[in-house]
């Protein structure tokens, strides 16, 4: 039984690692070697999860979107089309990797490789179980935000190196969109961090565990803002202006073919999984679920939550049409940003009341939750009304271009 509780305790894969560290210390290895061995093991674990997840997600996403759009989806390769991702990968590897003559060679090749670094690094700080965390940074939330902001420049690298006007347009759109949506998402996470009073992801999960509440119940507005903002940062369908097929063909990866395109495709999926995991950790309690984690392994709960959030993203993608560029920017600056600032002020006030009067958490947290839910609903409805009031009062009718005094371009000859 002792053996079962230690080595083979699958509820938390961190336990075997802890045993391994002890065994290595007994063997008399120095700290650096132990660090290297365990770090390597953790990295292999995370990389294999990411690889398998990226392969399975292709199938999940295509099947689910097909189901939403009343199609069948891939169903030929293997049972239920399960082998479709492998067939896709083989096809992509076989294809010739074309490179435009005028492209910037090194940057062109480097971009799809480098873009994986921030996507995979984000998994390092996630707590998969109580002791399953590769790097328990005490600035974990900030670390994830920093990784998100570096993706911008890599995507720009790809778009610029392609030497194609559509690619450049796509990457400039990515940059504009990412820096607009970074502010609301950061401010939304600030609310979470203020409540938990720590930036460490495991600390935030521990906060949710000690106070017996998921942060989504305390921070509904922050959850919504972060969900919408991260949809935009991921460049998924309601906000996929960066690769809008019907406008700029494929955006920043228009010139990429073969496995280089496959890498961009895969990194998109990896990013979605990472963001789903972040949402599951910050707002849905991570591996902790009101006592369920004593029966089910924490990492299974975590992966379940991760895929629940991922389903929301697929749902968005299957049902929502694409925003226009200006609408997307206006949504970030005029709706999400004010709402997130109000949210931060509210949380600061609540935390101040909580700590200054030394109230018990059991008393104030339910009140805060109800107040925040009510205010979130009121703010969203009220703000929406205020934003659209002028539009409803003075509706704009579509007019022909010839009717308004706009200098028309000369009709081109030939």
């Amino acid at each position, binding site marked *: 039984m002792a053996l079962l509780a230690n080595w083979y305790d699958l509820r938390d894969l961190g336990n075997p690692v802890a045993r391994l560290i002890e065994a290595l210390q007994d063997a008399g290895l120095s700290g650096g070697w132990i660090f290297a061995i365990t770090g390597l093991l953790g990295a292999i674990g995370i990389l294999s999860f990411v690889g398998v997840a990226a392969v399975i997600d292709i199938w999940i996403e295509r099947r689910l979107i097909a189901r939403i759009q009343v199609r069948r989806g891939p169903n030929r390769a293997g049972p239920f089309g399960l082998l479709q991702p492998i067939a896709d990968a083989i096809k992509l590897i076989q294809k010739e990797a074309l490179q435009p003559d005028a492209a910037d060679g090194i940057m062109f090749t480097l971009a799809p490789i480098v873009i994986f670094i921030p996507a995979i690094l984000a998994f390092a700080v996630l707590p998969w179980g109580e002791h399953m965390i590769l790097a328990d940074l*005490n*600035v974990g939330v900030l670390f994830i935000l*920093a990784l*998100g*902001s570096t993706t*911008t*420049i890599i995507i*720009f690298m790809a778009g610029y190196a392609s030497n194609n006007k559509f690619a450049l347009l796509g990457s*400039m759109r990515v940059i504009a969109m990412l820096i607009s949506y970074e502010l609301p998402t950061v401010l939304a996470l600030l609310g979470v961090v203020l409540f938990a009073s720590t930036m460490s992801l495991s600390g935030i999960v521990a906060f949710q565990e000690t106070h017996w509440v998921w942060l989504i119940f305390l921070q509904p507005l922050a959850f919504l803002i972060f969900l919408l903002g991260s949809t935009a940062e991921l460049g998924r369908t309601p906000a996929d202006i960066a690769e809008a097929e019907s406008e700029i063909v494929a955006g920043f990866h228009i010139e990429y073919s073969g496995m280089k395109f496959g890498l961009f495709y895969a990194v998109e999926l990896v990013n979605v999984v990472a963001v789903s995991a972040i949402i599951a950790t910050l707002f849905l309690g991570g591996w902790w679920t009101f006592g369920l984690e004593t029966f089910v392994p924490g990492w299974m709960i975590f992966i379940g939550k991760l895929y629940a959030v991922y389903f929301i993203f697929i749902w968005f993608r299957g049902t929502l049409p694409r925003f226009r560029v200006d609408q997307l920017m206006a949504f970030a600056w005029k709706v999400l940003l004010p709402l997130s600032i109000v949210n931060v002020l509210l949380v600061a006030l609540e935390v101040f009341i909580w700590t200054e009067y030394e109230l018990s958490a059991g008393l104030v947290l339910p009140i805060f939750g109800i107040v925040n839910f009510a205010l979130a609903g009121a703010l969203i409805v009220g703000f929406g009304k205020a934003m659209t009031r002028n539009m409803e009062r003075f509706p704009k009718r579509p007019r022909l271009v010839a009717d308004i005094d706009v200098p028309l371009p000369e009709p081109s000859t030939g």
Partner: protein
Amino acid sequence: MLAALTIGAAAMLIVVRNLMHALLFLVLSFVGVAGLYITLSADFVAVAQVLVYAGAISVLMIFAVMLTPRSSRDNAGNMLQLPALILSGLVVAGVTFVALETDWREAGRGSFESTATEIGQALLSPFVLPFEIASVLLVAAMIGAIVLVRED
């Protein structure tokens, strides 16, 4: 190794002719500096370095390069080479002087447990006035920028 990465990237930044390559080397050198901060156990500063410099400042520079027609392909030559040389020489001399004169022995003391908390408390209790002045300055700059580019 991190120092070699940082300095190498910074040197390449000056040497390469393509401005966009120079920009990417600049980002690489920012990341190298962040790595140096991590070895100094200043994790908050390191992450903030990546977030602000590699994430935001580089995007700002991309906009500057993309909106300047002549600079998008090559370094433009102009008359400022001699003043730039003198100025950078002065900066190098100043930094070297300070580095040689400073007493570095205090670097041997223990590392902080959690720098984020320390920085937060330092900013909001002893240094709250400079902090507020900086934020007011930034707001003023932002409003000024908006006023400058307003069309009506």
